[in-house]
């Protein structure tokens, strides 16, 4: 049974991914940083559905936390993590001119540096096992931009560059690295959008609806499967047509 690690897997898209992977037979560990009670609740709820999740605290932007979780001598190090899905993250939306540098750093830290540290933590096991799947969750903001999201856009776009470079390093070990670009999905991250903004976003989506976390999870589930072994360095958008429409010159 292969082990999967889903950062930010205690809620939202991360949780849906964790549950899907557990359903597909992976032994799933989810990380959380801020809400142990929420993580525990998520684990219990999954259990009620017959899905086994283990929740561990890990600030993805902390090398110390990664060392504690996956450093030499830890159980996870010995067993190896075969699948990494980096779904952790938050937004601190502000117009660039008003953005405190520390908040820019925080967003880059959790999404981009966190992704780098996560990849570094699981790499040894994947190389040793000569098999691996890494999926970074990104956003249409990376390529399309969005007012107030220069930090989030930079971080998510950065993950694309990281992914592509990593492909050149790890492919010989049967490790694939891809991004899943999640469009508008109704979770805590987007829950606080004012109704008018939400409506405006929907208007730009051909399907006219937000995606469900399960629909993002389905894409991740496919990419980490055995049969997706020749797919690497790709960004798979699950966005109701959002990016495709914007790419069309008109």
């Amino acid at each position: 049974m292969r082990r999967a690690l889903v950062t930010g897997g205690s809620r939202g898209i991360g949780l849906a991914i964790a549950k899907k992977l557990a359903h597909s037979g992976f032994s799933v560990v989810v990380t959380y940083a801020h809400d142990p009670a929420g993580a525990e609740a998520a684990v219990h709820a999954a259990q009620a559905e017959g899905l086994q999740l283990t929740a561990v605290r890990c600030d993805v932007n902390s090398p110390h936390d990664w060392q504690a979780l996956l450093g030499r001598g830890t159980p996870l190090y010995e067993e190896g993590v075969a699948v990494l899905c980096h779904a952790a993250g938050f937004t601190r939306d502000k117009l660039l001119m008003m953005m405190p540098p520390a908040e820019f750093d925080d967003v880059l830290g959790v999404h981009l540096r966190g992704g780098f540290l996560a990849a570094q933590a699981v790499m040894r096991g994947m190389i040793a096992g000569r098999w691996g799947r890494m999926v970074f969750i990104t956003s249409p903001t990376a390529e399309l931009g969005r007012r107030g999201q220069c930090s989030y856009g930079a971080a998510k776009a950065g993950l694309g560059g990281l992914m592509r470079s990593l492909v050149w390093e790890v492919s010989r070990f049967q490790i694939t690295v891809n991004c899943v670009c999640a469009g508008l999905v109704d979770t805590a991250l987007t829950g606080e959008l004012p109704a008018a903004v939400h409506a405006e976003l929907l208007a730009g989506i051909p399907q006219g609806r937000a995606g469900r976390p399960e629909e993002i999870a389905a894409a991740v589930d496919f990419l980490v499967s055995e049969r997706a072994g020749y797919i690497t360095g790709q960004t798979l958008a699950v966005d109701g047509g959002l990016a495709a429409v914007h790419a069309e010159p008109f």
Partner: protein
Amino acid sequence: MPNSNLTEDVKKLIITSLKLDKAPADIADDEPLFGGGLGLDSIDALELAVAIERTYRVTIPDEKVGKQVFASVSSLAKYVGENLA
């Protein structure tokens, strides 16, 4: 001086972990591992370091040490022998 068994075992580890089509006898003790006849690159070094860690529980902490340690089979076997728990 690392014992000849360890040197032999290290050669076998290099061959199996890097999937080289060679026998231990084909690798000279003092042959450079990298930039030499074996045709290994920096990513092979990575893989070898992982294999050494897993097999002997010996770490190569950084690139600087790595360069010295990976100079040849002899230097690698010596480092492993010195650092075995």
